[in-house]
């Protein structure tokens, strides 16, 4: 899975939480959805690690889905 795809979107009507957004992204981009299921994806909201898919989202939030990392 390739990182660093960037998009600014208007929050769809039915997307209220981080989990909703993840499902929405998977519907829009099935390949990305499958890749997120196949590997450990970390969720980041406004540059902080998110642990809870029920976390509410608001307009202006920055959300990142991070594939496995490889530093060092």
């Amino acid at each position, binding site marked *: 899975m390739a990182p660093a795809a960037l998009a600014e979107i208007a929050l769809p009507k039915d997307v209220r939480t981080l989990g909703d957004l993840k499902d929405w992204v998977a519907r829009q981009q099935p390949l990305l959805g499958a890749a997120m299921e196949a590997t450990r994806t970390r969720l980041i909201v406004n540059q902080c690690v998110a642990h809870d898919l029920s976390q509410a989202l608001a307009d202006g939030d920055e959300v990142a889905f991070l594939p496995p990392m490889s*530093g060092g």
Partner: protein
Amino acid sequence: MDIRIVSRAFDPQAEIAAFAAGRDDAGALVSFVGTCRAETAGAAVEELRIDHYPGFSEKEIARLAEETSRRFSCPDLLVVHRVGAIRPGEAIVLVAALSTHRADAFEVVRILMDYLKTDAPLWKKETGPQGARWIEPRSEDYARRLKAEEETK
């Protein structure tokens, strides 16, 4: 503590010299430099590309460095991590630690490197004659990271 992400080639020896200059409070300096190999598993490497998440990558590396150093006696720590296009032979990462005695400095550098391999928000892509591929940590990297977590509890 000095944590930096750089997009141009850097000179690890010059960084280490500047970091250690005038630090007569420390009796030990340990450093690790990771460089780009020209060959991996029998295949030539033409270029390594590292992506980062601006802002978040720096913040997470600083958090890992703080968590590691506060469990040891380590008065100062330097991390320089390269991003962008890297040629074989160039430095990718430098971790250096100062401490009063050697044991703490060795531990901080080793454990922080183990964390960086799996937890630093950076993504490596290797390009060779056969094309490009994303690099994921090896199972031994995850095993070392688990061990590091136990050692820093």
